[in-house]
């Protein structure tokens, strides 16, 4: 009996070792660890997708890491942190930081828009609405903030909304006045952090993505399409907003032009688990799969997802081609 148990133990060890050393050698079913880097604003929907995906593919263990999109992309390009998938709140980040060295293609899969969040304890919470919000933000004693435009796309997008508001409401000097009432200390590394400041009463109003507001059950003011950066048909107006953000080295600057919020996703070239990555992307882009989850969580998806050219489409793994259309 003891011998038999020992034999079992040995067999188990051998099997485990085989599992460790040759994770992809047998079978077509994806398995092993799948590392996903994603924008902080995707945390809640991706957490849900992870659960569903893991019940579909029980052998895959999804490991997610969320943060400012620019930072997450840098983790791949500079620190060479292993990752299989990168999902960015601004698809441009993938184009700029990862392609061509760390990725080949970029799929646009969802949109978002900016809203002004608050709680019922915020100052003037009873008064504020879609018409007077900018007058409230000018008031002394109202503490409002946004995330750091140099680190987080949500940050420069918040500033763009303010610039567009000046043009849209035709109030001269509105932008300068608003920024003057927002001391630097109200700027935070990433937008999701502002949620806890709102909830603890350290802040009255914060600029967030609609999806974040919905997921964290915050109150929010929905802005007109002309300024909320959510409707790609308004891109010609959005691009009038220009924000200076830090460039490649300290002291240098680049200008970002307004554009509708478009999320991009890609597979990292030297990822350790391309099979699982492909399976996850297939699930994500399925209108009844990941896209449905996004929709439920206030993040309107592109159905079908979009790639900019036939060339990009031809570079996709075959199983993913059916989920995308070529549309710029």
């Amino acid at each position, binding site marked *: 009996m003891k011998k038999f148990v020992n034999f079992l133990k040995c067999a188990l060890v051998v099997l485990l070792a085989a599992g460790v050393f040759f994770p992809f050698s047998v079978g077509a079913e994806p398995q092993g660890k799948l590392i996903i880097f994603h924008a902080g604003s995707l945390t809640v929907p991706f957490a849900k997708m992870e659960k569903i995906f893991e019940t579909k593919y029980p052998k895959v263990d999804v490991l997610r890491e969320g943060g*400012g999109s*620019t*930072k997450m992309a*840098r983790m791949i*390009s*500079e*620190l060479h942190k292993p990752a299989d998938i990168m999902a960015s709140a601004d698809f441009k980040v993938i184009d700029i930081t990862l392609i061509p060295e760390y990725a080949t293609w970029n799929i646009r899969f969802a949109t978002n828009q900016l809203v002004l969040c608050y709680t019922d*304890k915020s100052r003037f919470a009873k008064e504020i609405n879609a018409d007077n919000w900018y007058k409230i933000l000018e008031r002394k004693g109202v503490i409002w903030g946004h995330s*750091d435009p*140099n*680190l987080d796309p949500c940050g420069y997008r918040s500033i763009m909304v303010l610039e567009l508001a000046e043009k849209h409401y035709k109030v001269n000097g509105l932008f300068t006045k608003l920024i003057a009432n927002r*001391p*630097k*200390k*109200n*700027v*935070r*590394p990433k937008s999701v*952090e502002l949620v*806890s*400041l709102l*909830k*603890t*009463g*350290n*802040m009255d109003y914060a600029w967030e993505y609609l999806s974040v507001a919905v997921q964290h059950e915050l109150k929010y003011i929905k802005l007109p399409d002309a300024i909320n950066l959510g409707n790609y048909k308004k891109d010609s107006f959005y691009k009038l907003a220009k924000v200076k953000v*830090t460039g*490649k*080295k*300290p*002291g240098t600057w680049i200008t970002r032009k307004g554009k509708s919020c478009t999320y991009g996703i890609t597979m990292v070239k030297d990822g350790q688990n391309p099979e699982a990555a492909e399976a996850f992307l297939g699930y994500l882009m399925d209108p009844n799969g990941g896209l449905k989850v996004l929709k439920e969580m206030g993040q309107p998806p592109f159905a079908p997802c979009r790639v900019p050219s036939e060339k990009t489409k031809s570079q996709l793994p075959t199983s993913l081609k059916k989920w995308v259309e070529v549309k710029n």
Partner: protein
Amino acid sequence: MKAKRRIDTFFWVAVFSTGTIMVFILLPLIEMITQPSLHNLKETIQDPDVLHSIWLSIYTSGMAALISFTIGTPFAYLLARRNFVGKKLVESIIDLPIMIPHPVVGIAILGLAGKNHWLGQLMQQVGIHIMGTVTGIVTVLTFVGLPFYVNTVKAGFEAIPVRLENVSRSLGASMANTFFRVTFPLAWRSMLVGIIMCSARAISEFGAVVIVAYHPMIAPVMIYERFTAYGIRYSQPVAVWLILVCLVLFLLLRIFSLPKKKYS
């Protein structure tokens, strides 16, 4: 002979451990320090933002150490000299800040300071603001540094024979007098070490600070910001400068605190 051989083996184990530990600590640090070019380092230290953040780091950690010194010394003395019901509990509580994950510290302090809490309302009425202020940073750093001060100084007090104090008291000196004229001169060195430990802990804090205050930026937050905004090339030099400045500061403090160690 037998005994000697046993010592030998142990000696070599100790040598091996020492080597391993030195390599383990120094290798990553040397790797980082040698990465940036001299030009890079020079450019970085001329950046007023960098200078300001390093200065702010030193200033806020120093303040935290000073506060710990002021309120921590009598407390450590009490712990070293008296037994009371619940002493073990009090000693465990003082260790809590070492164990709690750093962001939790930040979140907890912000939770108190917001206007959804009566304490926060009170503080805001008297004009104390925690979010995004130097006050906030010092508060967080004191929270994380205090245990290091108290534990070090408590051990220092415990090493001083009680009978010296008893002699002083029996000759008519008050408790305060005894403390300042007998205990303090014997314990100041451990207090200095406590201050070093406390400020060293404080200067390295990132997780709790970044939640309470992103701006104004202390050096660790700036290192993080530089990394995210510009990449590793521009964050490393800041880190190198912080390490160098801290190394010099702590070395100086140690030199001042250790000159007369003949009787050990």
